[in-house]
Structure formats: C-alpha cells, structure tokens
C-alpha cells in the first residue's frame, strides 16, 4: 500500500469518525423520536464505514466482518424488531420537555467530548503507535454522549437509542484497539444488541398498555419517601 493511499484511507476514516461524533451530538438534542432512530442508523453506517476503512488499512478480515455485521443488524433488523415489538406510538412522539433545555444539554455534551479527547489520546498512545487516530477519543465521546442521553431524555425511543449508541461508541474505539477479537464474539455482541431492542420493545409496549405513556423516564413512584397515607394520618 502506497503512502498516498494510506493517507487517503486515514483521511476518509477521520471524516467517518468526525461525522460519527456529529450524530452522537444529534442524538442528545434531536426532539423527534423518529429522527433519533434515523441518526442512530446513520451512526451505525458510519461505524461500519470506519471498520471497513480500518480493515483496508490494516488488511484485517475481522474488521470486514464487523462492518458487515453492523451493516446488516442495525439499519435493517433494529427498525424491523421495533416495529414488531414496540407500540407505533414511540415513533410519533416529540419530546418537548427534556430534563435540560437543548443548549445546556449540548454544552455539557461538548464538555464531555473534550474530556473524552483528553482521556482517549493518552490511552491510545499507551496502547501502541498503531492505535493513534481519531477512533479511540471519538469512541469514548460516543460512549459518554450515549450515557448522557440516558440521563436527559424521557421518551422510550431516545433512551433505547442512547443505550445502543453507547455500544456503538465502545465499538468505534474497539475496532481500533481490539482488532483481533474473534468474529464469533463480535457476532454474539451484535446479537445481544438485538435482544436489547426486543426486550426494551416488549417492556415499552407493556408500559404503554398499562400506564398509557411512552415517556418511561418520567415514571417515579418508587422511592424512599414515607407512604403518603401514613404520613398524613400520623400528624394529627
């Protein structure tokens, strides 16, 4: 492989990971539930692209496998599973009332991404010279932004996407640092992601039927507060 080709591949990979980071920010802020799903699909495609580019760069069959698994499972099977299990309502919801308003959420997300850079670069350097590149810091940022999404969103769909986006982030770093992971394990992890979608879909359906909402993040009846009836009657 000539230097020019290698340079080109590395630049393309930087582009893919950069766009990946952008989708992670989008998932934090996107109000429409359907939009979140679309952003997640775009993110998974970018992850697949990065895996394929790194596969080309390091001539690794494993990474082509990862790219293929991501191409099939997330853009195709995840939406299909959601249609089969979750109520149709989760697509149509629009989330007006987030825990934080969107500019604040994005500012915190930015701080998280910067923190991820300062953690990711020394980590990648300590692991060896061939791991440098944007994958590790952006992967950590993806992980952190996914976790952050879980804390600020209330609707079922963005929460589910936050969970899956965390896994995408871990994988984006993983395709750079853990290239030799057996394909069997990769396949199992992808299957696991699909089981997550299935179980969460079933749970959301149950919540929707029983409680009549898909804003699962707002459920808060279980806590340590003294029972209302007892408290009122204890005070004469």
């Amino acid at each position, binding site marked *: 492989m000539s230097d020019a080709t290698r340079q080109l591949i590395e630049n393309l990979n930087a582009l893919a990971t950069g766009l990946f980071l952008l989708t992670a920010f989008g998932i934090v802020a996107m109000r429409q539930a359907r939009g979140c799903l679309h952003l997640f699909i775009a993110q998974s495609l970018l992850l697949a692209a990065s895996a394929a580019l790194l596969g080309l760069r390091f001539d690794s069959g494993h990474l082509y496998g990862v790219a293929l698994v991501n191409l099939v499972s997330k853009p195709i099977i995840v939406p299909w599973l959601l249609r089969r299990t979750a109520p149709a309502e989760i697509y149509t919801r629009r989330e007006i009332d987030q825990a934080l308003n969107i500019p604040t959420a994005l500012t915190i997300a930015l701080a998280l991404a910067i923190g991820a850079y300062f953690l990711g670069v020394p980590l990648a350097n300590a*692991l060896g010279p061939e791991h440098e590149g944007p994958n590790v810091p952006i992967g950590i940022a993806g992980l952190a932004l996914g976790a952050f999404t879980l804390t600020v969103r209330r609707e079922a769909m963005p929460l589910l996407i936050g969970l899956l986006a965390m896994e995408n982030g871990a994988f984006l770093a993983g395709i750079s640092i*853990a290239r030799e992971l057996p394909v069997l394990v990769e396949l199992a992890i992808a299957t696991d992601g699909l089981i997550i979608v299935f179980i969460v879909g079933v749970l959301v359906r149950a919540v929707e039927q029983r409680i009549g909402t898909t804003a699962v993040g707002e459920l808060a009846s*279980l806590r*340590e507060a*003294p029972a209302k009836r007892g408290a009122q009657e204890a005070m004469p």
Partner: protein
Amino acid sequence: MSVIAILFPPLAAAALVWLPFRRGWVPAVTVLSCLIVLGLAARISWRIAAGGSVTDTLDPAWSNWIAVDGLSALILLLIALVGTTAAIYSVGYMAHGNPRPRRLRLYHASYNLFVFSMLAIPLAAEPTVVWIVVELTTLCSALLVSFENTREALEAAWKYVVLSLMGAGIALFGFLVLFASLHAGGGGAYTWTGLVAAAPGMPALPTQVAFLLILIGLGTKVGLVPMHTWLPDAHSQAPSPVCALLSGIETTSILYVILRLFPVMQAVPGAHANTWALVLGLISVGTAAFLLLQVTDYKRLFAFSTVEHMGIILTAIGLGASAADYGAMQQIVSHSVTKSFCFFAAGATLLTVGTREIAAVRELIGRAPAASAALLFGGLAIAGAPPLAVFLSEFAILKAGLAQGRYIATGLLALFIVIAFFGVMGHLNRMVFGAPANAAPEPDGADLREAQGYRLPFTCKLALILAAVPVLVLGVYVPEPLHELLQHAAAALTR
C-alpha cells in the same frame, strides 16, 4: 462428565415448559431441572474441593472458552442451590392469584433462561463472553422483574434494564481496553488465567482504565453505591422467588466478574485496586446502613441489605489479606443462603397480609405465626446475630481486618454493621410485635385474606425449611469440603 452439561438442563427446561402438559407439570419441570443442576454443581464442587480438575476431559480447544476453578465452582454451587430452593418456592407462590397458563409458562421459561445465563458466568473463561452472558442475565430477568405487570413493577423493570445496560456499555469498553492492553503487553490467550499470567507486562495506564471502567460498569449491576438506585426498586417489585435469585445470587455472580480482575491488578504498578474496593465497599455499607433505617417497604428493607452485604464483601476484598479473602468467600456463601431465605419469608408475609408496607403490618405474630417466625429468623440471620451464618463470616472479616492493623476501616465496617442490625431488627420487630397504630387502616386485601384464614402453600413452607438449613448449619461450623472449596476460591483472588 463434561462441565458444559450443567448448562443443558435449564435450556431444555425453558423449551419443555411450552409443551402442552397440564399446567401443574410446568413448575415441576423447573424444579427437576434445578435439581439436576444442583447435583452436577455439587459434583463439580466436590472434585474441585478435593484438588482435582473438572476440565481435564475437555478438548484443549475449549480451554480458551471454559474454565472452572475454586471461585467458579463456589459460585456455580450457590446458583444451583438458590435456584433450586427458589424453584420449589415458586410452585406455591406463583399458583397464588391463579395466573393464566400462558403467563405461568412464560414465567418458568424466563426463570430457566435466567438460571442458564447465570450458570454461564462462572463457566466462561473469555472476558468478552462473560460480558455477553452478564448482559443476558439482565435481559432474561427483565421480564421476571416486570412479571406482576403493575405500574410499580414496570417502572422497576425499566430502571433495572436501562441502568444495567448503561453499566454494561461502560464495562464493554473496559473489556475491549483490557483486551488491547493484553496485546500491547505481549499477548497470550484472552482468558482470566491468561490475563493473570500476562499482567506484569501489561501497560499500566490502559489496564487501570479498564479496571475502573469494569468496576463502575459492572458495579452498577452489583448495586454498589452510588450506582445502586435501581436495585431496591427491582429487588422489591419482582415476585419473591425472583427477588431471592436477584438478591441472593445475581449480584454475587456479577461481583465474581469484578473479583476476577484483582489478581490481574496486583501485578500492575500503581493500580490500587484494593483501595478502590475498600472505599467503594465502605461507602456502600455505610449508605445502605443509613437508608435501611428509613425504608417503608419490607422488601426494600431486604434489598438495601443486599447493597450493604455487597459492600461488606468488597470491603473484605479491599483489606487485602488472605484471611480477609477467606472471610469474603464465606460472606458470599452466607449472604446467598440467608438472603434467599429472607425473601422467601418476605414473600410468605406478602401472601398472608397482601401489602408491602411496613406501617400497615402490625401484630403479625397473632395473625400469621409461621410467616412471623420466618421473618424474625431471616431478619436476625441477615443482620448478623449469632449463631447464624452471617455472624460467623462477618466475624471472620472483622477479625482479619484487626489482624491486618486496619483499625479505621474495620471500625467503620463494624459500626455500619451494627447500625444496619438495628435498622433491620427495628422494622421487623414493629411488624411482628408492634401494637397496631389506630391511624393505619388495613388494606382491603388484608381483611379479606385474614377472614379466609390464609394458609401458606406446602411448597413455600418446604422451601423455607430447606433454605433455613444452611443458615443454621453454617452458623455453627463450616463442613470440611466447603472449607476446602472456600480456600481454593480465596486462593483465586491472589496471584
């Protein structure tokens, strides 16, 4: 005999419950499969305790995927034991309220899959495979937690799934970094033993980062403070036999995965894994002890006690002496057997009075002597009263701490244990003997059941008696084979 055989009975049972038998047979399938698992687990433990190996008949190609040592055998045995008593308890408990046959089958299928996924944790040798089965435990148990399909149960299941999976996402990255630092340090098989062997050559920074990510990620599922918020919800809203599984062994088997990293971290300079364990452990014990004082729901009481006991085990590991390691292993055993008993007792109380509120239950001794006796015995046992199992193991840990000269940590631990003792016993005492406050009207369900003279199902009583046996026996002495097994398990915690 192949060790993998232990995974088949629960898988087969999960499929068999869907066959069109009469519904009375459905729970029997689960009990039978658990009994087979218990027999196999006892056999594996027996061999390991005698210093033998159970994986020598396996094809060498399997050695990268399956490994069993003292620690794994101990966890296997506990899963099988609690799985069996909880399966027996389920027979009578789930018949209550007469669920539709389809739901009963769903319960038993999920139950068996849950047991299967937990059994796979100690057997798997490859850390990423372990991560996958840890995920499976969450996913298989999610439908069990939400089984009662009430508003609260659904909320609890949702919190359980989201927080556990969020922790799992963090842990996944940790396992990938661990894999990378294994390769940066010269490579070798990515198994628990391979990691221990390669640890001295592994780069320090990534290994420490991996350890912390896994500690935080899986610590969420263990219920370590401050990641414990979901635990009292899920562990109190699930049906009682499921609570026994969740609290008694699921937390322990996830903690086992964290414990696997300690021999690795001992070779990494500047890792301070023991300090992390000590600090997180003490914070968990302390927070849980104070939260125990203000609970209003007796199932949550036992759930917080689980947080406390996970903290005690982690603190013992953090003390970092071989005597403390042995104490931690003993604590794992005594907590599992005792906590499962406690949830059986709580379930018996719930069946009798129909409410989970502590304030609504008064003078239970007059209405339900059997449930009262079980509740008091369970409370005394879990709070650490002599001569019961938890007392002996807590005593061993405190003694080891003092022998190490860690007076402050040991003193704090003892103080928190005492506070928790009064927290647990204060609430239970008021439930069993307290005079009814005239302000607290009894829920309608309670009157109804009292009028009918509610009797506990036979299988519930049987499970209570079976679960009480190890609590009593282990409080008096530790049988020789178990002692050997505990020593093998404690040895797996150091290099």
